[in-house]
């Protein structure tokens, strides 16, 4: 099967530090793919390159088999890739609907729209549809995002990414700050996004969680991909061994 997104031989050096050396990575259609690795393995650098926030020194990116270059996050967004960072980047004083449509607001039809008037009712309705589709439950649509719980804020940020990314949503440690129940909700959300046909890349430290939610797991160590597993063929021990020693046992295709 043709990968949706493929990174081949990516290198990135910061001064004396080689963050990525000849790293490969790929995302298949409609899958949840976990990217794991120890601290300093190059996960963040790779994510930045995939989302257009950083440029590689070498290697190439392909989308649907065709080479592509991202010079800014907007390029990646245009290619259908959206990233949810740990800091979420929501406007805390705006409502969930306003955040969902920020930068892509819907205006009134006709003259009013030409004058810049917003169609808030329509944005609220579409936001509600999006939240319902993804199973996100918020206590109120009109309250500022700031008033929501951490898990709800995370859900709003992910729902927003899923709304505008046709191909891939990248989640950087999406459950790091969440409690058990909220974590479960966010993982459900990732599954729903996959079931809607958008692939999800999840960066995580939590091995059991990765095994629980991911379809496929790729392991980075010291700047290169050292292993690639199907989630149902490995256990936590295998993942830890791959992360720390680079040995993968048998390498899955």
């Amino acid at each position: 099967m043709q990968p949706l997104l493929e990174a081949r031989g990516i290198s990135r050096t910061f001064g004396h530090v080689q963050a990525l050396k000849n790293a490969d990575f790929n995302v298949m259609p409609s899958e949840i793919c976990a990217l794991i690795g120890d601290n300093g393995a190059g996960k963040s650098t790779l994510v930045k390159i995939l989302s257009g926030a950083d440029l590689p020194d070498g290697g190439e990116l392909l989308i649907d088999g065709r080479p592509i270059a991202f010079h800014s996050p907007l390029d990646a967004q245009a290619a259908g890739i959206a990233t949810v960072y740990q800091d979420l980047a929501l406007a805390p004083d705006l409502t969930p609907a306003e955040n969902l449509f920020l930068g892509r607001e819907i205006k009134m039809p006709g003259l009013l729209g030409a004058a810049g008037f917003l169609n808030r009712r329509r944005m609220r309705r579409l936001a509600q549809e999006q939240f319902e589709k993804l199973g996100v439950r918020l206590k109120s649509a009109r309250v500022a995002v700031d008033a929501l719980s951490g898990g709800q804020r995370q859900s709003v940020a992910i729902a927003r990414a899923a709304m505008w990314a046709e191909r891939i949503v990248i989640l950087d440690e999406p459950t790091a700050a969440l409690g058990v129940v909220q974590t479960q909700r966010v993982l459900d959300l990732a599954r729903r996004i996959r079931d809607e046909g958008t692939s999800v890349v999840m960066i995580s430290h939590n091995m059991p969680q990765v095994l629980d939610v991911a379809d496929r797991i790729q392991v980075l160590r010291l700047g290169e991909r050292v292993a690639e597993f199907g989630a149902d063929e490995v256990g936590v021990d295998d993942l830890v061994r791959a992360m720390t020693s680079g040995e993968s046992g048998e390498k899955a295709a």
Partner: protein
Amino acid sequence: MSEQATNLVYHDRASLEERLLNLLATGWIFLLLLVLVAVFYALRPEQFGSAYNIQQLAINAAIFMVLAVGQTYVIITAGIDLSVGSVLVFASVVSAKVMLFLSGEPGTTFGTTEAGWGIVAVGVLTALAAGAAWGALNGALVAYARIPALIVTLGTMGMALGFAQIITGGVDVRAMPERMVTHIGSGELLGIPVLVLIATATVIVAGIMLHLTRFGLHVYAVGSNEEAGRRSGIRVHRRLVAVYTLCGMTAGLAAVMANARFGTTTIGGHVMANLTTISAVVLGGTSLFGGKGSVFGTVVGVFIPIILLNGFVILGIPPFWQTVAMGAVLIAAVWVDQLKRRLRKRS
């Protein structure tokens, strides 16, 4: 955050509790205004409630109101504009000089000139353009040079006033077109002072733009989380320049109103304009941290010091008490804002 609340079904309307909380948080200053009006009216109904007094209150508020509306936009972006008073002075001086020059009368003219409406129109446009130019400079320095707004506008505050004094040699321009003074400064339309009409129109247009348009939403977004705005594709720098330019333009409009009202420029008269507008905006519930605020709140915030002063004068309380009371109210307003934020975080 209890899990129970998370399980509530997503609904489109604010709950009663939220509404009450909001009303209490943003409404108390409006309530204070109503209480002040009620108390002063109860104590001195004839004087305080007279048509003349109400009209004077509105006229006193008008210039201040226009300035505060511009300041509201700036503060919602988490900025501040200390230069509004100086920009007002600069715009009024330049506008007055241009009108005097066009009327062909000597530069030493006192009193009024015979300039026609065409010249007045040029004067108005000059004032607006002069204000907008200072605002654009403020905005560009804040957005592109990344200098804190406090410092940028502190700098342009000195520069604008300095240039106004250089242009005039420090002496007020005392010749205004008579038409402008009689028809705008002390004129009425349908029994309402023209100055009040201008201020009302400004408030309405600014309120609609802030609360109903895409530009307005972006103003909130930039103040709430600039980085989020940038990642969403909002041209944050351009929005900032536009907001400061708008604020400069309101200072230009206020300059026209001041010229028309007093029949002279007032170089020494607006030293405190920045602080009074900022305190009015903050009183009105606009957060100094950005992202939150309303034009209606600012209207309330503008009237509180004016009503206080008026009431004290009518009651025979030394007017100096007004500044004391205002200081206390301002601190209380910011305290309530902090409480509100904490409350919201916890809810």
